[in-house]
């Protein structure tokens, strides 16, 4: 399998009045084609920033400071300024017109809150027409609507409801519409940010099941951003655990749950309630995630880590191959 996406040493900073917050610090991930990668971590750890950085849509005042984002294109993409050739391209070298051509068509992003991401003045069908015509002005309204109906049907929404407005839809259905809009241009990479967080368990399970079906049908590669490790256990192939802007562990789902390496991953798994294990003693991690304005020398997790050594307080650990077959950034392990 080829790698569809490769991110190397990505650094994103938010320049605020209080100072500069480093939201991502030399983050590197690899995503194989047709796989689902889960980005997990607590709130404020930088998982959404990473997702948006791939689209080069980090919200103001954030900025990508350095790093590379390689995307493997299976076909050249025509742009009015300069066409993008087939093969691996570094998104950091593209201009804004070229990025616009890739967004939606190659990479689609489903934003976190379905309640505020749809325009209340437009029908569901209009949303589809807008997206498709922005990328291909030639496409007729009818053709766009047909595509919309087909996609919505696959998500369990009656096709005739394209004439309805967002307020006539429930939260779960709006989320389905958001997913449908993401798929409208048949992208290869779908990034969804907390797609089921505001939903009830039953609707969550329904949507995750439909997303899995769509992934097969459209040959998608997915990035699923969530704080819910239970959801990732059921859906992701690989998982990257992020803490305070750094990738702590990156491994296959089985390895991560079966043989977690990083002390943070272990502690996180101990803290997750598991309805199938009532005897499990829930634990917590002392302290709180660090303030990104206050730079902590060494490993960001060292103040909360029970295994912290002297080197952890001075030097940043790099991601190295771990025993579980994944990668881990921790001084407890040595590269083999």
């Amino acid at each position, binding site marked *: 399998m080829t790698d569809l996406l490769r991110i190397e040493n990505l650094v994103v900073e938010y320049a605020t009045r209080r100072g500069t917050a480093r939201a991502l610090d030399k983050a590197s991930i690899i995503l194989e084609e047709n796989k689902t990668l889960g980005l997990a971590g607590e709130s404020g750890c930088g998982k959404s920033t990473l997702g948006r950085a791939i689209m080069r849509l980090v919200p103001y005042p954030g900025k990508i400071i350095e790093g590379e984002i390689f995307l493997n294109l299976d076909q050249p993409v025509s742009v009015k300024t300069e066409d993008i050739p087939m093969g691996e391209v570094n998104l950091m070298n593209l201009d804004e017109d070229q990025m616009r051509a890739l967004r939606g068509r190659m990479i689609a992003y489903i934003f976190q809150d379905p309640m505020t991401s749809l325009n209340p003045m437009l029908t569901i069908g209009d949303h589809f027409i807008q997206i498709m015509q922005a990328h291909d002005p030639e496409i007729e309204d009818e053709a766009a609507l047909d595509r919309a109906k087909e996609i919505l049907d696959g998500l369990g929404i009656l096709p005739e409801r394209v004439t309805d407005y967002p307020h006539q839809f429930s*939260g779960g259905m709006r989320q389905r519409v958001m997913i449908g809009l993401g798929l409208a241009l048949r992208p290869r990479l779908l990034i969804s940010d907390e797609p089921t967080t505001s939903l009830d368990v039953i609707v969550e399970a329904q949507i995750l*099941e439909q997303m899995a079906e769509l992934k097969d049908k459209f040959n998608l590669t997915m990035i699923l951003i969530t704080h819910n490790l*239970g959801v990732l256990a059921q859906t992701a192939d690989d998982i990257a655990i992020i803490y305070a802007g750094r990738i702590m562990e990156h491994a296959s789902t*089985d390895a991560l749950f079966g043989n977690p390496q990083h002390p943070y991953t272990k502690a996180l798994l101990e803290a997750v309630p598991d309805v199938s294990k009532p005897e499990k003693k829930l634990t917590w991690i002392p302290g709180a995630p660090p303030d990104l304005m206050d730079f902590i020398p060494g490993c960001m997790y060292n103040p909360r880590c029970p295994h912290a050594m002297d080197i952890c307080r001075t030097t940043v650990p790099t991601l190295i191959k771990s025993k579980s077959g994944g990668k881990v950034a921790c001084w407890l392990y040595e590269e083999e």
Partner: protein
Amino acid sequence: MKLVEVKNVKKYFPVQKGFIDQILSRKQTYVRAVDDVSFYVKKGEVLGLAGESGSGKTTMGRLCVRLIAPTEGQILFDGKDIAPLKGEELRLMKRRFQFTFQDPTSSLNPRLSIGEAVGDALKLQGIGDKDEQAFRSREVLERVGLSPAESFYDRLPHQLSGGQKQRVVFGRAIILNPEFVVTDEPVAMVDVSIKAQILELMMDLKKELDLTYLFISHDLATSRYVCDHIAIMYLGRIIEIADRDQIYEDPLHPYSQGLMSAIPIPDPKAQKAAAIPQGEIPSPIDPPSGCRFHPRCPKAFDRCPKEDPELKNAGNGRVVACHLY
């Protein structure tokens, strides 16, 4: 001993009528948020109230502590019906039960220091003078783990982490030494790494202060760790009440079964959910006839749309509202 008993309680919220409806004097419609609910909580127990959003669980919680008055029915607290209470009598009664709101950030006044926020209840109830209130407030801060209280007393909410704010919320709830606390989604807004800490605080307070809880949560995985019994609500009705382990291992109502199978399990080897109910929860303005779950129920038969099932004893101290039993 039954500390709180709710008998046939209903809460209907009127739906605002549009201009045209008013002209045509159309009939007033109601959101039936809680529709004929009965249950009780024994002293010293934790009853979990679970269900999807819109099932009426928060409304039920608010009724139990008389933040709102029921449309019909009785709410017995320690044997006394608190539903018809008003004014001074209700205010004094409210010392005995408290409510913690879902979102700690928006339920704390951003301009009120932590110490003042916690001591506010004493002020409102006219207990003690200023010094006494401040003293009690410090005591409570220590008790909920915000120590040393001196360093927290003058801080404002934005200077605290999410977990610490949740501690303040609990501090505010226990300062009047209540007997019964309704907590609405206490861990929904806190990160998973500190969830267990808040749950442990809750259970420690229960032990120390001899509290009884109504634990409202849509997160059934968490409820399993704290509740003694669990009541499942659907569209304003309670459809099943059982022992914690019974309801997780052997749910009787088809809706409970669906809910249980949909809980994500943090283990990639766990079996995937088999039968997830289709569709979504219907509108409480115009609930389905008969059993409210029948349009989504995989086991519905001809009796279900016609007859409304009552909560019946199904043996082993469990009750269920379903024609199958």
